[in-house]
């Protein structure tokens, strides 16, 4: 019998076993497959969901989410009955369309308007780049260490240069689920830095504010991307980031080829790169590099009690240095 034929027989026996919990006596069983069948049944019966900490809390939170009006009903079935909300909705739509048209036709004008409006509102508006200004909607996903599953969706204004820089949303709504709903505001505790230079039209995509105080920012366009993470290390040994690097090296399936150290303006940085084939072997879901050359690169350094990692696909040392030299503290 061919391999496929044997497998088809095996699957028939397995399905019968999974359906009834007992082997079908009418079907022949080979010794070699007995252990497989038993394991298959065990895998099916393993109560994995029993270990979940969120089963009840999540359901409750989803109910609250719906009750707050984050409804699953189709938008077209929603009727605005009152005149004021209807007018407000129409005005908002008109403004959004106008901003969209202006952003495409004349981004500079839009930036100038943003500066003026920001000044009038007493807000500091720094238009970071045209691409970023057009980046209308971003999202932060925030994960609390206890409440968990707190989701903060951040809607940026179309001119939200300062918004992304300071991680202070221009306007926002909370779509929180979880027991810690009393505290929606997540402070950014770090003296966050932001790259002033973004190569090849990369733009801020999303960010994470984590319970350990770290901030991750993801920038991307198409297949190009990089991540900048900033983690406080004041309570940890100075060399932990090096250990972390070693840890990844020893636990990965592919070795980090080399680690170079550089001294840039008195800051020691470590640079390493994975060959594209090794990277894809290690991270099977990774996209191929654009040019087939060494692809995944990461720059590590520490400064003022913060560990920084700048890494990404198609990241070269030159590109990393360019970004590194453009990092500026966000003024909040």
């Amino acid at each position: 019998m061919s391999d496929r034929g044997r497998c088809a027989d095996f699957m028939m026996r397995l399905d019968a076993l999974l359906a009834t919990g007992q082997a079908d006596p009418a079907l022949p069983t080979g010794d070699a497959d007995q252990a497989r069948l038993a394991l298959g049944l065990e895998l099916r019966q393993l109560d994995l969901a029993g270990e979940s900490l969120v089963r009840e809390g999540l359901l409750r939170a989803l109910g609250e989410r719906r009750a707050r009006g984050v409804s699953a009903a189709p938008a077209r079935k929603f009727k605005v009955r009152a005149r004021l909300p209807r007018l407000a909705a129409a005005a908002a739509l008109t403004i959004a369309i106008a901003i969209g048209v202006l952003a495409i036709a004349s981004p500079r004008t839009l930036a100038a308007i943003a500066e003026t409006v920001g000044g009038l509102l007493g807000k500091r508006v720094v238009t970071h780049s045209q691409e970023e200004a057009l980046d209308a909607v971003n999202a932060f996903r925030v994960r609390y260490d206890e409440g968990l599953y707190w989701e903060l969706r951040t809607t940026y204004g179309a001119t939200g240069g300062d918004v992304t820089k300071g991680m202070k949303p221009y306007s926002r709504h909370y779509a929180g689920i979880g027991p810690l709903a009393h505290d929606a505001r997540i402070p950014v505790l770090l003296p966050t830095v932001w790259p002033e230079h973004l190569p090849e039209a990369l733009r801020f995509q999303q960010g994470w504010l984590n319970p350990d105080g770290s901030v991750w920012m993801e920038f991307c366009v198409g297949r190009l991307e990089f991540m900048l993470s900033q983690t406080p290390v004041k309570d940890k040994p100075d060399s932990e980031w090096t250990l972390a690097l070693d840890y990844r090296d020893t636990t990965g399936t592919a070795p980090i080829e080399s680690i170079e150290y550089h001294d840039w303006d008195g800051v020691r940085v470590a640079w390493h790169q994975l060959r594209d084939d090794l990277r894809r072997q290690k991270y099977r879901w990774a996209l191929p590099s654009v040019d087939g050359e060494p692809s995944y690169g990461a720059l590590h350094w520490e400064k003022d009690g913060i560990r920084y990692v700048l890494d990404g696909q198609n990241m070269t040392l030159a590109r990393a240095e360019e970004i590194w030299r453009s990092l500026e503290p966000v003024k909040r």
Partner: protein
Amino acid sequence: MQPTCARDPSDEDLAGRARFDHTAFTELYERHFAGVYAYLRYRVDDRASADDLVATVFTQALDHLDAFAPDRGPFGAWLLGIARNQLRDHRRRRARWRWLPLDWISDRPGHGPAPDAALELEQRREAVLAAVSGLNERERDIIGLKFGAGSSNREIAAITGLSESNIGVIVHRALGRLRKELNREEGRHV
């Protein structure tokens, strides 16, 4: 992932009602939570990530119930589609950050010493999951769908784009490898 008896409303009926009726959504949640969670748990290496992902899956499902089209497949397969998309994003992010202490909730209070039987079960579960983590991504996907989500070979074929016979071969081989790995681990601890 199926209704518990013939008189129960179908998933598709419930999904239609769940847009406006939270009781219907709750019923869907109760039917599918264990399967979706188990699928995710077979795919990721820690409980916290599975918790995180399952929450995202059901939140997305709640928010986008109107996007579910019964003529394109069963509700369970739709949920698993969301789960697979979330996994892709999750892996993309986590690939770089595996050394960061993300397992924040594993030490939450309230997890006292377990009784012997529960401890044994827990150890076995960990051993099995450790063995599953040694499989390649495709094998984990199919093991998760087959044994976690309880999907049929036909459903797995529709979700993954593989043929049913291919799935049979992958399951057969993966179980063989798992068995071997678990035997080796057991031998190590004897």
